[in-house]
């Protein structure tokens, strides 16, 4: 039955390649706002029917599921076994699927301490742009046979292949989590987060917003207690809801209907002085969310990010017609285009979603 679905996908891809018909790969549609919009002529390839958890043995710390599987289903099964996806993926809608999560490559508050989606991907099964059914990586923690094509899929926005199945490393849920809150300004918070990140404490998430620094402590009860004593600050009882609102962008900061920028920078970068912007800081300072008026100078934002050792993404466009992702250096752009050409010679897989050129 499941193989029938793959055969159909594969036939669709082959026909599309023959006719140079762009495909819009769609899982749950929860991240359709992200990246460039699909081409107008694209035909939707709905991968959501290909779903189900195929293998999960908690003691192996690995779960394998089909790309159309709802993320909620995976996380709920893991939770029943006191385990989790440690990169804390944002959903942005209950319809979020595993495939979309991996293709978009977005990670949540725990990223700075536990790692990103790509750090947990162990293997993938994909269809390339010629409809070939390919396996890379596997279900084991350590595997260096062949190039790491599995991780190359993460964040590629479906431009290199259609994800069919993904194996992920999972981790145990921390025994205890507690959020603390401290009053301080941006400059002080950035310094504080980085300083403590260099100490062996169990800080699993940080967020600075509205002159307050929130820190989540995770681990054994004794460790969490010891960390709280060292860090000081007030216990913040509504921690779970707070981190969820940061992860899902339901926090008030994200409410105004204006463009939202995501700046990924060196964690110790001082507060970015960009006029008319508001900022929310995560990941010990390595992630800066900016809301700003539509007419704000794009180049200034991009240059600021680059100067800070990173890059800026126009995360929510709100009808802004400017490139979403930071421009690649010509040398890197060349490699991207050659890779795209190899994986998808006809250029039919989500063309333009990542960069207009491919």
């Amino acid at each position: 039955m499941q193989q029938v679905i793959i055969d159909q996908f594969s036939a669709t891809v082959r026909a599309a390649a023959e006719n140079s018909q762009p495909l819009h790969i769609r899982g749950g549609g929860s991240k359709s706002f992200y990246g460039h919009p699909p081409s107008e002529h694209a035909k939707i390839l709905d991968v959501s029917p290909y779903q189900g958890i195929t293998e999960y043995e908690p003691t192996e710390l690995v779960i394998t599921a089909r790309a159309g599987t709802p993320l909620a289903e995976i996380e709920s099964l893991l939770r029943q076994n006191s385990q989790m996806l440690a990169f804390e993926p944002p959903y942005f809608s209950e319809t979020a699927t595993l495939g979309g999560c991996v293709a978009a490559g977005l990670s949540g508050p725990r990223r700075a301490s536990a790692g990103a989606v790509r750090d947990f991907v162990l293997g993938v099964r994909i269809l390339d742009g010629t409809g070939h059914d390919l396996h890379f990586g596997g279900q084991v923690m350590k595997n260096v046979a062949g190039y790491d094509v599995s991780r190359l899929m993460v964040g590629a926005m479906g431009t290199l292949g259609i994800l069919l199945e993904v194996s992920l490393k999972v981790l145990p849920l921390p025994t205890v989590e507690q959020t603390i809150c401290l009053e301080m300004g941006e400059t002080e918070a950035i310094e504080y987060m980085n300083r403590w990140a260099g100490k062996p404490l169990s800080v699993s998430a940080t967020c600075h917003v509205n002159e307050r620094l929130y820190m989540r402590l995770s681990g054994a009860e004794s460790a969490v207690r010891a960390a709280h004593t060292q860090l000081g600050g007030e216990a913040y009882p509504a921690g779970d809801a707070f981190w969820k609102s940061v992860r899902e962008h339901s926090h008030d900061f994200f409410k105004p209907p204006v463009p939202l920028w995501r700046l990924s920078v060196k964690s110790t970068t001082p507060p970015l002085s960009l006029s008319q912007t508001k900022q929310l800081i995560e990941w010990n300072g390595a992630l800066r969310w900016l809301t700003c008026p539509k007419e704000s100078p794009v180049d200034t934002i991009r240059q600021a990010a680059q100067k800070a050792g990173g890059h800026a993404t126009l995360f929510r466009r709100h009808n802004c017609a400017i490139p979403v992702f930071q421009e690649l250096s010509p040398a890197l752009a060349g490699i991207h285009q050659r890779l795209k050409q190899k994986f998808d010679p006809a250029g039919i897989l989500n063309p333009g979603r990542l960069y207009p050129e491919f």
Partner: protein
Amino acid sequence: MTCNFSASNMPIDLIKQLRTFLPQESVLHETEDLRPYECDGLSAYRQTPMIVVLPQTESQIAQILQLCHATQTPVVARGAGTGLSGGALPHAKGVLMSLAKLNQILEIDPLTRTARVQPGVRNLAISDATRPYGLYYAPDPSSQIACSIGGNVAENSGGVHCLKYGLTVHNILKLRVLTIDGESLEIGGDSLDSPGFDLLALMTGSEGMLGIVTEITVKLIPVPEKAQLVMATFEDIQKAGQAVANVIAAGIIPAGMEMMDKITIHAVEAFLHAGYDLNAEAILLCESDGTAEEVADEIERMHSIMKSSGATRITTSQNEAERLRLWAGRKAAFPAAGRVSPDYYCMDGTIPRKHLANVLKGIETLSQEYGLRCMNVFHAGDGNLHPLILYDANTPGELEKTEEFGGKILEMCIHAGGTITGEHGVGMEKINQMCTQFAPNELTLFHSVKAAFDPQGLLNPGKAVPTLHRCAELGAMHVHSGSEKFPDLPRF
């Protein structure tokens, strides 16, 4: 396989051109000067290179590459030469580029917790330099006093602590890379992610096939306050395997979890007299690190899990000296193998842990079949097996038998749903088994990835990915884990 060039074959022109920008002593071509470079850690494979170059700066590397590109000369990168798969095996008509002289730590940023280093810096040197700041570089291959960080990136090396702290790929932020035409790439960034494809992951573990890594920014993590070790003895290997699963099931990710089998225990005990239980079928070392409170908690839980899993003897380190003493046996496994046998061959497969007992039984059957002893050390937490096949290279035919035995172990790993290499890479050694692990279309895609960086195939030619022609000649059959016919029939 050794091949020497007579003076008439000497690429005089190339040497002359190299010497226009490299000092005399950085271009070697006399046979006796080339000798030290003819193999890496896998000494059964040897090849004298045509020329060895020892650049000292990135711009020299770029010039060498441009020259080799223009003359279509193969280039093989070499770090410290500790690789165990022949990855740095020279090319007879090529230039071997040693990165050993690029050995500077360029910057340590304690607040951002990163270090920027040159590729020839030794793995342990990074942790030594950053420890004064309470920080270290986590991946710790057993070869860490010798191996280079550039080699670690090229192999995606792991270590005893990688179940908890990750492999090389999880602990680097940025690379400077030169492609074969001398073009400079900056991959990754000072941020936690970068736009476009994850080329940082693609470069990691690419075995010197895609570019030369000239600078690495690594992540540093805080040195844990405390570490403590539980050593448990089992009279049944199955029970030891179950104990590992029970630790994980209890929600513990140990800082390290290593297993040794009976023959290893005996070899190590004869060598070190560490007081290991010689009746044991398996010994498990299980480490906890973190704050004093965390470690106390975790050690207590580990202890009780070992007990309920049927351990016959449990020792908990009471101080740092004792912890190191208990580790010493595991760390001495390789030298111990060297004591009980003239030669040994280190294999490196990964399997889902649940198949451990079966795979070990299979190895034992093969061991009898081939009449060769095999010691098993095992990164038990992540399923990475290192069988050490004991042989004598002076006995005619024994090396070939050993290689065949090793090849069968790797195939067994694939059948169990695992892989032919967990951390040592494919190199030259496992090129044939790649035909079993990957289907032709997958291998073709690997070649395409290579071509996107190095269309003429000048970097480390012939390594890591076999040609389809080679696979066809071997008649190797691709096996996808679990999908083979009659998966329940014994194969070994």
